[in-house]
């Protein structure tokens, strides 16, 4: 297991948000986390990436304990993420946004910057190369110099993925990447998620409400309800699991379209 969670419990003011969650993602796999609204999916993401600090349990990544580590440390270990509501540096260019991902893989400081040391210049070039590569990979390279905020929403989502890829992760967590995208964009996203795994050998863990997309892209699906993992398996297995059907029952929206 690349990512391994054991008995992770997270409480907020007496409310148990995550209840003894056991969960794992294999290296180079495509996995999804689904569940009704408020099931604790994003909380689980935040616990993995260090934004929340679960009270109990164990989280390991590549054999390294990452529970209650600072977010920037977790990223350094090789887990990148996107946010449910796109959180780009809005007033900065697409290029600068993607360059942010390289921060944790480089080291030049104030001294190097002021004196433009050879090491610093080589590093700046390297940062630019990786950023270009990542922008090209997701298909936003032609907007490199645009301000992030001026891009169409679908492209902003792609920039966020490029930025996450620039951290050179082994696992990337995508929090509802298809939200707000149209049909064409969704199809392209499926393609992109597959390419992230196939061409970069990066494992992908997805939170998504679009069941069509989830079923299409995931090899493993985990279902979360009221902070508990109630089912896991392939698309076929999960689809026919009575507990999953029950969890979604009564939700009269498109999420039912399993």
């Amino acid at each position, binding site marked *: 297991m690349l990512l391994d969670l054991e008995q992770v419990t997270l409480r907020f003011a007496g409310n148990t948000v995550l209840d003894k969650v056991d969960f794992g993602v294999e290296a180079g796999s495509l996995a999804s986390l689904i569940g009704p609204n408020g099931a604790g999916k994003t909380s689980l993401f935040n616990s993995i*990436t260090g*934004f929340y600090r679960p009270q109990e349990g164990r989280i390991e990544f590549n054999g390294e304990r990452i529970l209650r580590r*600072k*977010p*920037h440390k977790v*990223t*350094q270990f090789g887990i*990148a*993420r996107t*946010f449910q509501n796109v*959180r*780009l*540096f*809005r*007033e*900065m*260019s697409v290029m*600068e946004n993607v*360059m*942010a*991902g*390289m*921060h*944790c*893989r*480089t080291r*030049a*400081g*104030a001294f*190097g*910057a*002021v004196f*433009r040391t050879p090491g*610093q210049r080589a*590093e*700046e070039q390297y*940062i630019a190369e990786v950023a270009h590569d990542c922008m090209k990979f997701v298909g936003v390279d032609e907007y490199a110099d645009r*301000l992030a905020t001026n891009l169409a929403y679908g492209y902003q989502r792609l920039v966020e993925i490029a*930025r996450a890829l620039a*951290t050179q992760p082994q696992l990337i967590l995508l929090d509802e990447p298809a939200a707000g995208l149209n049909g064409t964009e969704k199809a392209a996203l499926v393609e992109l998620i597959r390419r992230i795994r196939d061409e970069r050998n990066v494992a992908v863990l997805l939170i998504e409400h679009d069941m069509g997309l989830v079923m299409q892209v995931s090899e493993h699906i985990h279902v979360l309800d009221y902070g508990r993992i109630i089912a896991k398996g392939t698309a076929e297995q999960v689809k026919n699991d009575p507990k999953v059907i029950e969890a979604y029952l009564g939700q009269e929206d498109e999420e039912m379209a399993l």
Partner: protein
Amino acid sequence: MIDRLYAYFDSPRRQTILLIAIVVLMALAPLVMGRYMTTIMTNALLYVVLALGLNVVVGYAGLLDLGYAAFFAVGAYSIGILTVQFDWNFWLAIPPALVAACIAGVIIGGPTLRLRSDYLAIVTLGFGEIVRFGARNLEITGRATGLSNIPEPNFFGYVISSYVDFYYIFLLLAIVAVIASHRLYHSRLGRAWLYVRHDEDAAEAMGINRVRVKLAAYVTGSVFGAFGGIFFAANLGAISPESFSFEQSVLVLMAVILGGMGKIPGVILGAFIIILGPELLRNLGELRLLLFAVVMLLIMLLRPSGIWPERRH
């Protein structure tokens, strides 16, 4: 109209030409300026250095600092103590003075970084006052009278002493400060400051250690301040606690905000306005500070993000 003028100078090439033209003019200026005007311009150049330093903290990293004069004081007093009390050579005393400023930067930065901006303002204000009171009460800093007879720097046999010499020293310092600011802005660290300022969570998710990055901003700012203080002490030959009052911190902060936070030409402009403004109005006597205040209020009303703000296309 004025925005079109700025837009014209937004291209890096034109900005470089403009800067070179200004530097040439400034370099020739002492030939026509009298002693009085030269001294004021020297002071304005000192403020350019200080404002660019504070701009790293306030403009780039978005941290409020109301005690910036403390770093200026640490630089000046370090030089004063080492040269006067311990008879060190001026140039040899510079590295320890910079180290002292870095330490001061960490001391103020470390415990305050968890605070939100309004609390940060209060703590930095307190820090500025602590340094000043420390200087006023310690034996080694000469108590309220301060330190005098700080030796004039000897540069390979040439004694830097006249007011024109110091004008050029500060012109050089200001040029170095502009180049350093520019290079910092376009670097990994400079971008990290902007990332943290724009969205701390997203920055952390990108693997940026926000505490370290903010600390780096305070330390960098303090080095600029210390350079200003070091040559300020050498220029006057005497320093006293009152040179580093709260008012100094506020004036430097005003230069940064008035000119346009984060933008180098804006900050330079702000520094000149803060120093030259009251001088140009001198023959109005008592009214000049009042008038200056009104002008500044008007600027803030009409151009709330500064005279020449950071603008991104």
